[in-house]
Every structure is written in structure tokens, then in C-alpha cells.
């Protein structure tokens, strides 16, 4: 289950001394995220923009009491960062890095599941509780507090959808970028119970894409758990060629596996309103919320 995130939640950033780590730590703090520490194995840097830097997450958690971690490190270093965060007892781990080797992701999934860590990513812009805090890259122009729960495989498509919905006055309750990798920490289906009980959430939007069967699994869980809020979906890639990875490692159709039609059929059968374009999405959601 997703722990409660707000402006008081203590967050550390692994890789805070790197280019992206430094930049996004600053932007997250501007948004209201309570970044209490950073992690970098480089012993010579002990502070970034007033934030204390520790040699590993274990030390950082011991000194700060952080419960959440955003890891901004390279794809080949990510598994080590996950191991470090798990060892430190982090409860919520967000890993935006793209291109994590899939076999590393399997190992990271085993570790986080065994330790009861909620892992979001990889290949995600992160998550946000609009108006309170964000963990990752989500652009401020797209964030607006409101009633719509939002989960997305794609960063940019969710920025665009979130932005257009926000322009139409529809904001988000909790926004989670589940990410575009095939093997990942959190899938749509696992957050259904969270959105079911979350009082701020009056409707749920998933932004999906071809490849895998995550949308189908989500549809099945909606039915099993009798999810009773309106659910909307936008699925990208209906005209993508077979056998080619479309940007995201997970976005790969082979045979009927992962096709747009299979997803649309499963979602429609679960009562989800599936939209074919961004314009229809905004009009359709506005009509229902």
C-alpha cells in the first residue's frame, strides 16, 4: 500500500551530487518536498544546497529518519541503489532511471517485495500528491490538486493529459507514474485498493500503452475488487509496428501479445471508458467528474 505522502514526509535523494540529482532536488524542494538528505559515495562532497550528504542510505536514514527515497543514478548503478535503500529500511522508493537491465529489475523486485518496500519505477517521472509534495520529475504545469487518481506508464503522455485536464479544471488526487519498463516495482493493479479507499479520489485514469498485459491485469482486478469509482483509460500505440520496442522497453508487441485491441477489450469489459485521443479524454472525463 502507498504510504501517506505530504510536505512533512522525509525524503532522501540517492545521487544528489550528480547533474540530474542536484537539479531535481532543487525543483522538488521548490514544490514543497521535504528533502532531508542526499546519498553519494563520493566522500569529498558532504553537502548540496544546504542538504547533508551521506555515503549510503543506511547512514542517511539513521541520521534523518527518512522514509522515502528518490534514486537518481545511472541504469547500471540502479540495482545497487535499490539494495542500499532496502538495507536502510526505506518504505517508499522512486527510481526514475531509464534503461535498467530487465534481469536487474527482477532482482530488485524480489528484494523490495521481500522487504515490504513500495518501489515505483524504473523508467518513471515519479509520483506526486499535487499541492503537497512530489518525488521525481512531474512538471508543475501539469500538477493541480483535484479528484482524479492518475497512473501512467508514460511520462510525456501523462504530462500532456494532466496539463489538458488541469486546463479544463480537473486536477489530480495522487499521481503515480508506474513507468514504462516491462518488469517494475508497482503495476496499475497493485494500487487499485489504495485508490478505492483514498477519499480524495473520485475517479481513476490510467494512461497505458501497448506491450505486456498490465492493462489486462488491471481490468481483472477492478472486477475482482468491485472498484466502484469511474475509471478512464487512454492507450497509446494502436498503430505501432510489431516486433519493435517503441521507446519504452515494455512497449513491444509480438503476435497478439500486448496488442492495443486486447487491452481495449479487457478494459471495456471491466467498465472502463477507453478513449482514442487526448481531446476525447478531456471531454469524457469532464462529463463524468
Amino acid at each position, binding site marked *: 500500500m502507498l504510504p501517506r505522502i505530504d510536505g512533512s514526509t522525509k525524503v532522501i535523494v540517492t545521487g544528489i551530487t550528480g547533474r*540530474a540529482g542536484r*537539479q*531535481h532536488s532543487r*525543483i522538488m524542494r521548490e514544490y514543497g518536498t521535504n528533502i532531508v538528505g542526499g546519498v553519494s559515495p563520493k566522500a569529498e562532497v558532504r553537502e548540496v544546497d544546504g542538504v547533508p550528504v551521506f555515503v549510503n542510505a543506511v547512514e542517511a536514514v539513521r541520521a534523518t529518519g527518512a522514509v522515502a527515497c528518490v534514486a537518481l543514478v545511472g*541504469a*547500471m548503478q540502479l540495482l545497487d541503489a535499490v539494495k542500499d535503500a532496502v538495507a536502510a529500511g526505506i518504505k517508499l522508493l522512486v527510481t526514475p532511471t531509464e*534503461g*535498467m*537491465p*530487465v*534481469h536487474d529489475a*527482477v532482482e530488485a*523486485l*524480489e528484494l523490495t517485495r521481500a522487504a515490504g518496500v513500495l518501489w515505483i519505477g524504473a523508467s518513471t517521472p515519479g509520483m506526486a500528491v499535487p499541492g503537497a509534495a512530489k518525488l521525481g520529475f*512531474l*512538471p508543475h*504545469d501539469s500538477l493541480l490538486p483535484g479528484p482524479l487518481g492518475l497512473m501512467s*506508464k*508514460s*511520462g*510525456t*503522455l*501523462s*504530462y*500532456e493529459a494532466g*496539463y489538458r485536464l488541469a486546463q479544463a479544471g480537473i486536477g489530480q488526487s495522487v499521481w503515480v507514474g508506474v513507468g*514504462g519498463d*516491462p*518488469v*517494475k516495482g508497482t*503495476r496499475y493493479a497493485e494500487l487499485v485498493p489504495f485508490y478505492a479507499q483514498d477519499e480524495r479520489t473520485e475517479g481513476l485514469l490510467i*494512461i497505458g*500503452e501497448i506491450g*505486456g*498485459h*498490465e492493462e489486462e*491485469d488491471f481490468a481483472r482486478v477492478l472486477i475482482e475488487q468491485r472498484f466502484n469509482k469511474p475509471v478512464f483509460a*487512454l492507450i*497509446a*500505440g*494502436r*498503430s*505501432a*509496428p*510489431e*516486433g*519493435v*520496442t*517503441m*521507446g*519504452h*522497453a*515494455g512497449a*513491444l508487441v*509480438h*503476435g*497478439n501479445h500486448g496488442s492495443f485491441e486486447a487491452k481495449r477489450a479487457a478494459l471495456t469489459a471491466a467498465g472502463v471508458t477507453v478513449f*482514442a*485521443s*487526448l481531446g476525447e479524454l478531456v471531454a469524457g472525463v469532464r462529463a463524468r467528474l
Partner: protein
Amino acid sequence: MYLHEHDAKELLARYGVPVPAGCIVGMDAALPEVLPSAGPWVVKGQISAGGRGKAGIIKKVATREELDAGVRSILGRVVKGRCVERVRVEACVESSAELYIGLLLDAEAGGVRVIVSLRGGMEIEEVPATEIRSEVVRLDTIAIADCVVRLAMGYAPAAAQALREAGAQLANAFVAAELRLIEINPLFLRADGSWVAGDAKVVADEGALERQPALRTLVEAQAAHYVESAVKLEHGFDYVVVDPVGEIGLLTTGAGLSMMLIDELRANNLKPYNFLDVRTGGFRGDPTRLVNVLKWISAGPKVRIVLVNIFAGITDLGEFSRLLVEAMGRVPGFKLPVVARLAGNGLAAAREVFAGAGIALYTDLDEAVAEVRRRLEVA
């Protein structure tokens, strides 16, 4: 990365998997002096997609004349939007049974799904569920091999033995080469109990290429056949030609948004040429990526216009617009009209830069698309 059957077989052979003798023939249709066997042969068109038999790019041939004709008839065929640029010529296999074995990463379970069946030779989706044995195990060589041994229990001795052998070899390959999927279908079982992989489907992990030298070498050596993976490896971003006769070159960032834009353009009877996730965050002040993309798009024989769509979360649009204009100047003879839709940080600066360069700028994507349509209709 979906490997051609030929490359999949060469990879698996390194892990001990027996494959029929075969050779590769390119667009010149020149057969080697020494053929893989005295015949008969199977001629198999190589593309990164399944359903090749149904598409007519797999043919059995008996004589040398039929072989020549078969090779020529399959080369150059377009199947599922892909041109067949090489064929594998393989010795025909006499078999007494066709089995199935597959290993695939199960994303939900976080392990490996192991599947075996005595009913190979058809799509696994079409085999009745009662005829399939399947289990999910840890991503571990021994766990996978043991699982195949368990699943094959009770099968006729020769079939069980073949599956056990294949299981051990495939488990090694799967873990060592960091694969996402291996499927041997059919696995030909001969009357004498020996076996051979009739077909091989392998999906490799692009994210692991950096530490998989054999696969990396394959992508570099066969860049023409793995265009998308080669681009990603060399340039660090994703570019896919989705319609060789498309009219609209796309300069976009973000996988999902780029895919969605292609869907919407097609639904409106417009013809996008390419998919692109250029990753503006990776520019670091250098226009090289944009120069490359503009060159590739300009090479599209029917491309008449470029549509730019950047939703800048973090990217500074002022810097992006300067880099784009600089890149246009660096592509010799570039004169395609450009319609841009930008949203996000630094819009005012971008507006100034684009006005000076004669680029139409919109902040609404639908309006930008309408302008593209108008220009295509006028021209």
C-alpha cells in the same frame, strides 16, 4: 529487441542448443558454394515478427532450381511493414514429433514462466490449455532447469529427455545473455531420440547491451537489420520509421506522447513517417541529435513537412529552439517546412527564435496538426 531467427539460432547454438545446418542469404540472392545440406531445404524470410509461415515467407524446396526461385521470391517481400532483406536457408528436418518449450520473463510474478507442451508447431495461444504445462520460478539457471525436469515428468521418455536437455541449455542462455524470452517452437524430435530447434524466437534486453558483448557486437554488425536498437546504442535515443512512405516527419520527445501523436495523425488520415523519443534532457547544449534526426527525416522519400511537438517538463524551450534552428542550418539542403507545437518553460524565448527562423509556432497540439494538414493540402 526481437532477434531474427538466424541470429537467435546462432546465439542459442553457443549454449549447446542443436540447430539445423543453415546459412544466410542477402538481397543479392547469392547462395554460398557449399549449401547447408544436399536438400531438401527450407527457405525462411528473416524479420522481427512472428506469423512468417502464414505470411508466405517460409517455403520448403526440394531442388536447386526451386531453391533459387524460393530465395528470389521471398527476398524483398514486405510483411507487417518490414522488408525481407535476408533469408535463412536451412536443411529440412525429418521428425517424429514437434514439441514446444518457452521461457519468458513474467513481469507480474517477477520470475520466469516456463512452458512446455507436446503440441508444438502451432501458436502456443492455440494449444488447448490442458495440453500445456507451465510454472513460474525464480530467475535462476538451476531453478529453471529443474522446473523443466518437473514439467516433463510423465511424458514419453524420448520427449522428456529432449525437453530436459533443452531446458538446461536454454536456462543457461536465458540467464547468461539476460534474455526476456526464448521460444523453441517447434522442437523437432527425431525417431532416434535426437532433437533440434526448428524455429527460435529470442527477445533480448536493449538495456543490457552495454554488458552483453556478443549481443552488442551483433547489433553493431547487423545495424541494417536492427536499425532501432543500433540507433539507441549509438545515439542514446529511440527512432523508428513507422511508414516508409509517410509524409510527416516527427520531431518529438517522450515515448508515450510520440506513439499517441502517431495514432491520432493516422486516425485523421495523415501519414506520419517516424516515431521519435529524442530525449531533450540528453542534449546538454549540443545540436548533434537534432542534426541526425533532421537528416534521417529528410531522407524519407515522401516526407514533405516536419511537425515538432515538445511538452517541456524541465527542458528549457529557449535553448531547445536555438538548438533546432542551429541544427536546421547544419543539414545541407534542408528546406522542409517546420510546424512546431511547444508547451512549457521558456516559451517566450522560443517564440522569438522561431519567428526569426520562419517556423510556425503553436501552443495547442490540435491547432498545430490542423496547420500541418492545411499545408499538405495546399502543396
